[in-house]
């Protein structure tokens, strides 16, 4: 390509990116830095995927798990897993990637005094309870958690340099699929020498290696020349440029100052403007994220009864909302599972309860009232005001109000909690008074990930305190089933059981709208909605 020196600007045929092989993609400031076991949010997760490889990875088209650093992952009973690494993998400091790196990393993450927020992922590994202790009266209480008995999980065992064995407390069909999640990364020996320094200057083993991090501004990574993967990076450098505002990023994308964003703002989605703005630079797809609203079952007044909850579900015109508010950027859901994952089926488990039917909705409402439930006059739908939920929440509330008609005796209103922090605080302290926005971004593409964390009694993200013994039993069956297909079938049965209480209303699954500048080509987006860093290439001028 020609060596144009101007960044940005749309003039000229020479490709300014060609000169130094650098591309600019939209990013945001990670909260916790680069330690994989401590990452639990998108900003850090995305960039971490560029620099760390896991045992497996997910195909960017089909989301199917494929081996990455692992040469094989085998288990006879889904309980004891033997994992073999590919030979010749290297850290960016030159040291080899070993089985010990994995075992040390997992132990470190799980050990509760290390306070890694991904520690619970190892809850199924034998000996987890020895390394992680709970605070008896919660973080607000005066008592402190006792010191764990050990700092090593008994279920992890290094066999040789490239092999280690994982023993679970119970069979887990999805264990293999989970291993692509960031928390299951290895950590180099360098990390243990100085964990603090690693946070902002990691030694990595992925396709790209870390260069620098200018806080709140950008993170720069460059292609790892020693990368052992089959597919090699096609660009020399990626600048992960942080934007505070989606519209700003989009404006930069349109004027070719930015090469990739996976967030097209509503302003551009409206009227399909983005397609005319971007032309063939627009990318559409799906991602494993669903939007739901959940009832606070712990609250008598707002929890309502099953008929009331079903009435609401049937009063939501998902189709019009996805068309008008999201410009078809979302797809109506008729189940609780993302269409992208193993175990998804059509028609969904929700069936007619997720179909818009004002007449039926009214009927159910009447039934609910007849059964003795009087909804409050004003019924809020809560969301966090610091990101773009207002539009759809308002539309949802309007839809329900109109379906129920003016004399339903209850009015639905969208209400914002200013910040996500506050929002989560109210949710986790179980003080929600009204429906609240919930959503699930899959950690790995499997039906299990949409059920266990959300609906099991006492599960971490069971925000509405939903509890159904039968469902728990069914899920347990599915978890421990050794045959993957059988397991999936059981999960599907479990999903169908959700229609009984309708504690959580599925709304829609996320489409993917991304765009590129005119300087790059070949861009693929993973099912997690982030750039596949290996796919991006600079156009020949």
């Amino acid at each position, binding site marked *: 390509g020609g060596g144009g020196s101007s960044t940005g600007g749309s003039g000229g045929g020479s490709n300014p990116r060609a000169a130094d092989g650098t591309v600019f993609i939209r990013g945001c400031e990670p909260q916790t830095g680069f330690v994989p076991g401590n990452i639990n949010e998108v900003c850090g997760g995305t960039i971490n995927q560029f620099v760390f490889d896991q045992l497996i990875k997910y195909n960017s088209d089909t989301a199917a798990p494929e081996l990455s650093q692992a040469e094989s992952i085998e288990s006879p009973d889904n309980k004891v897993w033997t994992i073999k690494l590919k030979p010749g993998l290297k850290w960016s400091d030159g040291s080899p990637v070993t089985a010990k790196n994995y075992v040390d990393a997992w132990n470190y993450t799980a050990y509760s005094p290390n306070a890694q927020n991904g520690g619970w992922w190892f809850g199924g590994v034998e000996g987890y309870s020895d390394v992680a202790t709970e605070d008896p009266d919660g973080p607000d209480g005066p008592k402190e958690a006792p010191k764990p008995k050990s700092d090593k999980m008994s279920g992890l065992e290094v066999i040789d340099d490239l092999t280690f064995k994982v023993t679970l407390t119970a069979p887990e069909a999805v264990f293999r699929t989970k291993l692509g999640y960031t928390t299951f990364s290895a950590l180099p020996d360098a990390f243990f020498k100085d964990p603090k320094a690693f946070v902002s200057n990691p030694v990595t083993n992925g396709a790209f290696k870390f260069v620098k991090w200018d806080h709140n501004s950008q993170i720069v990574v460059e292609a790892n020349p020693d990368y052992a993967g089959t597919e090699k990076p096609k660009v020399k450098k990626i600048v992960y440029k942080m934007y505070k505002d989606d519209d700003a990023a989009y404006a930069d994308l349109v004027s070719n100052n930015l090469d990739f964003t996976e967030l097209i703002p509503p302003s551009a989605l409206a*009227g399909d403007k983005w397609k005319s703005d971007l032309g063939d630079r627009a990318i559409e797809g799906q991602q494993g994220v669903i939007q739901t609203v959940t009832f606070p079952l712990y609250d008598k007044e707002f929890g309502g009864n099953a008929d009331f909850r079903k009435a609401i579900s049937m009063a939501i015109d998902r189709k019009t909302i996805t068309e008008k508010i999201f410009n078809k950027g979302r797809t109506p859901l008729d189940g609780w599972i993302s269409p992208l994952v193993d175990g998804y089926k059509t028609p969904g488990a929700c069936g007619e309860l997720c179909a818009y039917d004002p007449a039926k909705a009214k009927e159910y409402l009447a039934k609910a009232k007849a059964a003795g439930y009087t909804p409050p006059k004003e019924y809020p739908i*809560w969301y966090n005001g610091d990101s773009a939920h*207002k*539009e759809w929440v308002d539309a949802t509330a*309007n839809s329900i109000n109109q379906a129920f008609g003016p004399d339903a005796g209850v009015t639905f209103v*969208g209400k*914002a909690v*200013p910040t996500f922090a506050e929002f989560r605080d*109210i949710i986790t302290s179980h003080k929600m008074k009204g429906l609240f926005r919930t959503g699930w971004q899959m950690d790995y593409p499997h039906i299990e990930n949409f059920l266990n964390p959300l609906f099991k009694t006492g599960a971490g993200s069971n925000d509405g305190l939903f509890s159904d013994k039968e469902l728990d039993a069914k899920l347990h069956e599915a978890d421990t089933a050794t045959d993957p297909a059988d397991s999936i079938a059981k999960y599907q049965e479990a999903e169908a059981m959700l229609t009984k209480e309708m504690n959580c209303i599925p709304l829609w699954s996320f489409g993917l709208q991304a765009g590129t500048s005119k300087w790059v080509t070949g861009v693929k987006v993973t099912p997690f909605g982030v750039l596949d860093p290996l796919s991006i290439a600079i156009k020949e001028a």
Partner: protein
Amino acid sequence: MSEPTAAPASAGKPRSLWQDTWDILKHRKIFWISFALLIMFLVMAAFPSLFTSKSPEYATLAKSMEPPSSDAWFGYDLQGRDVFARTIYGARTSIIVGVLATVGTVLLGGVVGVIAAYRGRWLDSLLSRIGEIFLGVPYVLGAIIILGSVAPVQSNPGKTMIMTVVIVVLAVLGWPVLARIARSAVIQAKHQDYVQAARALGAGPFRIVFKHLLPNSLAPILVYATITVGSYIGAEATLSLLGIGLRTPVISWGIAIADHTRYIRTGAHAMLFPAAFLSLCVLTFVMLGEAVRDALDPKLR
């Protein structure tokens, strides 16, 4: 020695500053134009249903962002609600917030400014420094903190509560500027001989402040206050945008603007009409303030 020198003034009933101001205002075109507009806005705020029969809440999502038509003069907004109806109904909140917050600012700032100027010395320093504390706290931070602690969302505050808190926030964070203006105007007036003359007559502080100082320092306060009404209506929109100001179910111009700015490329009408009303309203207040200020100027009599 009794020939009249200027235009004859009847010696009938006693007149006051305010009556005379009114007499002058009566003859000014600009006053009547802005007054008519103000009345229109006030009627709109009080009886929105006179202007439109449509409901501002009723949403037909299918009509989302439809442009103006004979059916809906201002078109439909994102939620498929009638923009005209929402603009009309929005007047109430916007004007109440703008005006009450300004009134609060003027009262709070005026009282502090007058006291600081009148008493002077350490009290002046103290009040001025306190004002600086309030001005120094970043606006948005202050807003979040006050909104968050006075009307926490968990308490599920109602319409009136939210409005009250927004008004309080604007006034509490805005008064020091007015206090400064009032202070310097009063200090200027304070050194005039007529204040000394009143003291020589035995007038108490109350009388001096209300009869002598305030009427003579009103002009700059008025100018600032009328512009402030406008900037508060705008500020309300900004708070809404940040998610900490007014919110549904309240209907206001600010919310309408905040909600639809991003859609300006596909449906400018949803934002432009409320924005136009907002600008017109601001203009009305400023023109009115200007007219009153002119009329209060005794030299023009």
